């Protein structure tokens, strides 16, 4: 078959996967039991692969904390020596169909959310969102208090939530998104409605679980108004896992930043990364004394929500969040229209009343991004170089990684013509 026709067919297939998949949150398991390819000495982090010497300070803190938590080292200093010696391996989470927000480091013993899509066979993973406290591994901190919180997640919170999810017979993630569409979430940075609706799904079953600490579990869940994010990330990873198996498709299936470089993945070449200098996420700062010089460039995998067509792609869904990024309602519409220009499908579950009930765009074609010189917008939280969250905002995705992607996909599907 002609290459152009093969690309067209492949893109139709991936667009179908993006818009028809129904990932179900089925369980929580330790990463080593759930994620194929995970090993005891492996720690998964956000973004494209990075040289050890380039790893940012907060990610290094998180990796070392995760290593101590898992008993791979007695101290964080020893942990880093083992990383440098190659005894502890750092790898890109998305290469394992796992999403790691911000500086989060996922080690073998950590409980991960497992989402399964029966329609297309993909399975995705993400660690559990640690809550609204800024003092967490997810923002590059580690101490005894955080270690105690990690142990609570491993020994109590994760197993208890798993019990509730089992009793519920799984939770349909797209159903949560559909039921809360039009409530002001864009589901990357603003997830108040979807998190509360997800909590309702769990609350029906949490009183019946056998875990003796269920009161603590309910309290931990109730204070986290962004709990949905990591469940959604696992769901998106289940969808992109299937999309990555479609050769010839030019649809973007992964993206993330490691604090130095920003990278994207394209269906035709699976887990291959195409990178460019990471942009800054600009918008609001949590502390007025922070400046741009304090900020790390893009760090985290939570933008897999944008890969799916939410977050910045669905900015018009959440004018209040766009306001936080310094934008207006018109800017919110422009961001979604921009994504629509370079996308192949539409999410019928996310029709926005104040956008003529149009659905949010899905399945970004990297060819369109380059040809039309139209860069999608990502929302996101921004990190500090020293660790901690700087604020939240938005940024244009860098054109250079899309250009690299075109080179890579052309070399893969038409090597004789390049």
């Amino acid at each position: 078959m002609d290459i152009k026709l093969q690309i067209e067919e492949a893109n139709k297939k991936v667009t179908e996967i993006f818009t028809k998949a129904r990932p179900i949150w089925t369980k929580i398991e330790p990463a080593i039991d759930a994620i194929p390819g995970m090993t005891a000495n492996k720690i998964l982090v956000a973004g494209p692969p990075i040289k050890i010497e380039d790893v940012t300070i907060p990610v290094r803190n998180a990796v070392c904390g995760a290593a101590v938590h898992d008993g791979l080292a007695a101290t964080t200093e020893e942990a880093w020596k083992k990383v440098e010696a190659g005894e502890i391996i750092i790898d890109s989470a998305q290469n394992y169909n796992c999403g790691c927000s911000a500086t989060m480091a996922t080690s073998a013993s950590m409980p991960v959310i497992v989402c399964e899509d029966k329609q297309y066979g993909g399975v995705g993973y993400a660690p559990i969102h640690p809550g609204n406290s800024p003092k967490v591994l997810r923002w590059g901190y580690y101490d005894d208090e955080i270690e105690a919180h990690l142990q609570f997640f491993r020994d109590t919170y994760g197993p208890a939530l798993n019990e509730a999810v089992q009793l519920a017979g799984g939770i349909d993630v797209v159903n949560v998104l559909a039921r809360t569409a039009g409530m002001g979430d864009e589901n990357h940075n603003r997830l108040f409605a979807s998190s509360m609706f997800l909590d309702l799904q769990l609350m029906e079953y949490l009183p019946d679980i056998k875990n003796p600490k269920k009161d603590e579990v309910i309290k931990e869940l109730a204070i986290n108004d962004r709990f949905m994010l990591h469940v959604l990330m696992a769901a998106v990873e289940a969808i992109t896992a299937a999309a990555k198996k479609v050769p010839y498709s030019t649809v973007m299936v992964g993206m993330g930043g490691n604090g130095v470089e920003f990278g994207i993945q394209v269906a035709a070449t699976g887990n291959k990364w195409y990178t460019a200098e990471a942009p800054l996420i600009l918008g609001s700062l949590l502390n007025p004394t922070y400046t741009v010089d304090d900020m790390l460039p893009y760090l985290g995998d939570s933008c897999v929500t944008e890969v799916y067509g939410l977050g910045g792609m669905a900015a018009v869904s959440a004018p209040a969040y766009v306001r936080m990024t310094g934008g207006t309602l018109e800017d919110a519409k422009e961001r979604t229209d921009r994504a629509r220009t370079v996308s192949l499908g539409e999410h019928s579950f996310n029709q926005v009343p104040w956008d003529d009930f149009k659905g949010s765009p899905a399945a970004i074609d990297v060819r369109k991004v380059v040809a039309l010189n139209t860069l999608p917008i990502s929302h996101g939280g921004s990190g500090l170089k020293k660790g901690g969250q700087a604020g939240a905002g938005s940024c244009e995705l860098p054109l250079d990684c899309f250009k690299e992607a075109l080179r890579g996909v052309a070399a893969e599907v038409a090597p004789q013509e390049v």
Partner: protein
Amino acid sequence: MANTSKIQDLFNSELIVLNVGPKSFSTALEDQGYKTVQVNWKPIAGGDAEMQKLLGILGY
């Protein structure tokens, strides 16, 4: 002899300028009282010849 009435009509009708390119060209005419229509056209891939070739290979 050629019929020039149509071209005469054109020259005698109101001038509306179709501008393909930098918006400042049409703004300058608007400032002088002329009507313009802006066409937001950009060369494919911003004129990048390598990308244009790759896009052709990839069926765009």
